[in-house]
């Protein structure tokens, strides 16, 4: 909780990083880290609104580079959707919509 109000970190692909990068869609309960990229790539999933719009919606909800994220809960069926702590809010989303949110996992 102490870094909830931490400023955004300057992490981008060019900076050599220690740790593991993983899409938010693949994380399990308890996994936490910093968002390093929110893309607009198609992953074979059709989003009724198109990937660009999905990206904007994710950004609007606060899934931005530098935001801290932690998976809090998973649904009962196929561990989907997920509830995450995103900085100081709680947000629910489906894994299929979280594929383009890349998280730099904290090293334990």
């Amino acid at each position, binding site marked *: 909780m102490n870094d909830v109000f931490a400023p955004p970190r300057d992490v981008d692909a060019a900076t050599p990083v220690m740790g593991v990068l993983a899409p938010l869609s693949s994380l399990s309960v308890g996994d936490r880290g910093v968002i390093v990229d929110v893309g607009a790539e198609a992953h074979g999933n059709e989003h009724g609104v198109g990937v660009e719009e999905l990206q904007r919606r994710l950004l609007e909800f606060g899934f*931005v580079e530098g935001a801290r994220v932690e998976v809090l809960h998973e649904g009962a069926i196929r561990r989907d*959707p997920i509830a995450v702590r995103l900085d100081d809010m709680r947000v629910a989303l*489906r894994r299929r919509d979280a594929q383009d949110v890349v998280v730099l996992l904290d090293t334990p």
Partner: protein
Amino acid sequence: MSEAVAAPARVALVGNPNSGKTALFNALTGSRQKVANYAGVTVERKEGHLTTASGRPISVLDLPGTYSLRARSPDEMVTRDAVLGQLAGEASPDVLVCVADATNLRLVLRLILELKAVGRPMVLALNMYDIAQRQGLRIDLEGLARELGCPIVTTVATRKRGIAELVAKVDDLASTGQLADQAAWSAPDAAKIRHAHREAQRILKAYVRPPERPDTFTGKVDAVLLHPVWGLVILFGLLFLMFQGVFTWATPAQDLIEQAFTALGGLVGQMLPNGLLKSFLIDGVISGVGSVLVFLPQILILFSFIILLEDFGYMARAAFLMDRIMGGAGLHGRAFIPLLSSFACAIPGIMATRVIDNKRDRLTTILVAPLMTCSARIPVYTLIISGFIPDRKVWAGLSLQGLVMFGLYAAGIVGALVVSLVIRKIFWRGAVEPFLMELPAYKTPDPENVARNILLRAKIFITRAGRIIFPLMIAVWVLSTFPHPPAGAAGPAIDYSFAGMLGHAVQPLLAPIGFNWQMTVALVPGFAAREVAVAALGTVYAIADTGADGATLATTLAQHWSLATGLSFLAWYVFAPQCASTIGVVRRETNSWLWPAVMLIYMTGLAYLAAFVVYQIASRLGG
């Protein structure tokens, strides 16, 4: 110029969902509220009035909650257009009041930055300030006000704190505030949104110190309520309680209302001579009004549950828990609440589909909502079950009648899931909407706001439903009354009326599903509202005394119908669109006659098919 006669200053409340905007609206305007729809759309328009200390009249518009002016749903479009002063039939607001949850400022800061670009005079109301203080959250109000360039008032809407100060600030701005020369707002792209977030982050860091005692309650409660197993167990427990409430607690009040209207009818009957006027007043007007009001207790109980759960913050959790289960049938997690409401009545259910952003998801939900067993089907089910299903216990002390009732509910639910799956798989393939939803912090519901919102729902139900059902009841009365039977006619009067002719005309069509002409005649008035079919059957079988339980009628039906016919009638009622009000509401909510027509056709088809299968099988088996 005297302030008292000036046109009221227009104030619009804007803010994120769950910011306590409606509570603030209630605190500002008290009971001086009016609810209607915006012109041309079905978004609810809530307006209230107040007078400032200086005597200036102010009209307050409570706009739908939004995270961004980049609107995604009809509700959010109204907010955007109202803020920009582009909403048809709506004057632009003189002052914006941006309502923010003081404990959750990040997203609203981005909205404030967007609102600033619009260039209207604005006040920021930091609501739920007591919670922020309790958490030890420190906000540099002066610095923040300077940074944002707009005055800030701290409020606790549920305790009416800060309201006078807010009104005073609005009063100031209404007399001095200037509209910027040009509104600079345009829909932001990804880069702009990122930039706004960085700005918001910078502002947060500079003027807000994180809470010393952050809310741990929500996390603890979520550990139970969002648990994959316990969460679902609790959800279904709550649903069970809700049904118990709707069906058992409402009964005494409903009986009372029915008795009151029967008594009123009797009283009018004694005072008036036999004739057209008497029939019109008793069978048309009084029973028409009664048929609307009898649902009021159920609607009140249902909305009490929904509003309490909503205000507590549970509804978002319910949508989370149900998303995958509903998603299996091609429905959105948010469709859960509208479909749940439809168990009381499809009308509030269809009205509640507004929470679904996406048009296709919303249409699917609207189309299947009437398949949920609404309370109007209960009298019909009860009548047929008591006439045809033996009252005995099967295993484990379960009553057979209860099991059949349960089966009818289950048939409706399964039907809705199958239909939505078909719509998704065949008509709207692929396109699955994103599901992104804030899970707000849990809050204790404020009794006054809950009561006010329940009463508001009740009022909306009476006026809107009444406006449709009442004229329909009159129309049905006309159809079943004219023309009069010839002198010396032997059969019941309805047999000679338009309704009777219609019933006789369609009877051959319904013969394969085992319906006799008495039933088809009863279906005509039954189209006004499902439960009217009970009274109509009473009329065609010329039974004077048909109480709510229909005990006499059930016996008569059992003598006249085969078991197969009875079961077929039940199957018909699970699916048939026997409710003109629902069709009317769908017409209004979709703003087109296409969808009500689609609904009418597919539901009738489904009902016919189900009744046909049930009748054929049951009669082969010797029913």
